[in-house]
């Protein structure tokens, strides 16, 4: 809840300054402080390394194989891992290694863009609700609560069944149904920012409401947004794989980690490699992002015990 304090200390005695001017000498020091706190968390560093490796694998993993994910090798159906097919082949003769590279790329692209879009939507809605207060706040919260308790997964499946197959549409659909809980967190933190002196000062200077929200409230939520960005990636990977697993997300001929899991699920005892490789990649992806998110929270949040103390307790 004290996420805003980091930027406050940086801006010091001139709270109404636009955030751009904070990027002087003290901010650099703060950045280095964050970095040092982050590096102190070993799991977080491991998370970053794994995540970077996964990104590199998804981008350049295809260089090492002559197979494409869409090529069918009819001479090798459901073959276990071998020298020609590193991760084996599936029932259709597709190379699992090539599919894994492509599927990881798809899942990553979806997860990162949905998470980024979700944060933007949630920040704008949550901060606006808190800033305007009154009826706007009530209505927004009512809508958020309604969408939270409505089985949004069902609606998600319903909508993406018709529209998807196309992963770009899936990004939009996942964003539309995924911003609520983050918006609620951002709202609850912003309600205390609303009362800050620099917001009041900006109001007296006649700065318009959208500008106050964008330049004064949202920048002070920075650390919260960054942490939620990484955790949003985890949440999106999980819901994308769930949707694709059920056949409502990414659809053949396109491949994501979720569709690979669905393919492998039926043959998990007879051809375990079909399931093991995508499952391993999903878990590596979500675990690494969780560690990174955890490390970021500790590094950016001065009241967090574990990071600041660095093993004091």
């Amino acid at each position, binding site marked *: 809840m004290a996420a805003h304090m980091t930027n406050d200390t940086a801006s010091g005695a001139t709270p109404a300054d636009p955030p751009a001017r904070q990027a002087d000498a003290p901010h650099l020091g703060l950045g280095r402080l964050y970095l040092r706190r982050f590096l102190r968390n070993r799991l977080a560093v491991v998370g970053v390394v794994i995540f970077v490796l996964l990104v590199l694998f998804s981008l350049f993993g295809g260089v090492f194989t002559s197979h494409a994910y869409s090529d069918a090798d009819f001479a090798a159906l459901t073959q276990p891992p071998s020298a020609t097919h590193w991760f084996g082949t599936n029932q259709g003769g597709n190379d699992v290694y090539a599919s894994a590279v492509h599927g990881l790329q798809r899942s990553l692209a979806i997860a990162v863009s949905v998470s980024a879009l979700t944060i933007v939507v949630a920040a704008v809605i949550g901060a606006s609700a808190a800033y305007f207060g009154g009826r706007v706040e009530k209505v927004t919260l009512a809508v958020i609560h309604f969408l939270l308790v409505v*089985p949004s997964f069902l609606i998600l499946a319903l909508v993406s069944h018709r529209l998807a197959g196309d992963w770009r549409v899936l990004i939009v659909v996942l964003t539309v149904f995924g911003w609520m809980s983050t918006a609620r967190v951002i709202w609850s933190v912003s309600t205390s920012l609303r009362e800050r002196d620099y917001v009041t000062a900006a109001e007296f200077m006649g700065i318009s409401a959208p500008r106050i929200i964008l330049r004064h409230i949202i920048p002070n939520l920075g650390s919260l947004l960054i942490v939620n960005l990484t955790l949003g990636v985890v949440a999106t990977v999980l819901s994308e794989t769930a949707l694709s*697993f059920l056949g409502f997300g990414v659809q053949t001929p396109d491949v994501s980690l979720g569709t690979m899991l669905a393919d492998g699920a039926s043959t*998990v005892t007879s051809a375990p490699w079909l399931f093991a490789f995508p*499952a391993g990649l999903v878990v590596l992806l979500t675990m690494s992002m969780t560690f990174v998110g955890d490390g970021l929270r500790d590094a950016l949040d001065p009241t967090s015990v574990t990071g600041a103390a660095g093993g004091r307790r």
Partner: protein
Amino acid sequence: MVRHVIRKAAGWLLMIAVATNATYFLASWFLDPRSNFKELRPVRSEAQIDRALAPYNLSPQEPLVHRWWDWFTSVVLHFDWGRSPTGVSVNGEIGYRALISGELVIIATVLSAVIGVTLAVFTASRQYGWADRISQAVSIAVFNIPTSVAALAVVFVAIWLNQNAGLHFLYVAGENSPGVEGLFPTIGDRLLHLILPTLSLTLMGYVGYHLTQRSLLLDTINADFVRTAQATGLTRSRAIRRHALRAALIPTATSVAFSIPAMFTGAVITETIFGWNGMGRYFIQTIAKNDVHGTVATAAFAATLTAIGAILADVATVFLDPRVRVN
């Protein structure tokens, strides 16, 4: 108390009504029953297809608002949820399925909450001890595993146990065995089939309770009122259970309602993997078959489950939180 619950229930009833009707419109927009006929031979004309759908209140020739009104009145007056594009009654399909899915979701929710909170109490009072660290690591790992992977891991372990440990009561497919007669054998058989799906769902659900309850409890465990309670002569564990936990449980109780949609999502996947003919699988089938009425009935079912969870959470909050006054 009763009035409080009734007032809350009325609010939730409204929520269910709004959600169900919204789903009706969404389903009518996004599902196209006519496409079911596209593959059939001999090829049907548009008019023939519309005529075939008309008796089931699905014809696109009829304005959507009219179709909605017919559907709405039949649900309200006769509790008739309509028919699928092939004329199968939705009511006949959902009765049995709702029972087994409801059983699955409710048992898993209760188990998740109880196990999660118990684990949280146990670990929070031993913060940074080895039990705390290990359970924390396990929970974070489970939290990051997709439900499908977790459920299949459960299947894998169960098959291995069946083969190597000589167990014969772990069923990985279906919700009952064929050919079981009599009341008690049937109940026993069903309970045995329930073990693994419930286990998978609970595995998915307990994590949230464990992690949030642990951090909530850590916030209150060193509060003054807990120390005061200990000073009056209570043991530390009793002080934690009676005083710290009671305060820390309130946010958890409210979060039960919000966890049920996720539980239902988990149930959809679990039912798919364990071959259960519950609402989850029905939902997938209805969407695949462009069955508007079936889809809407599933959404209503999920909303009802959420409402039940929310009302139970409200009742729990009244008991837990002395600041909530009802009379």
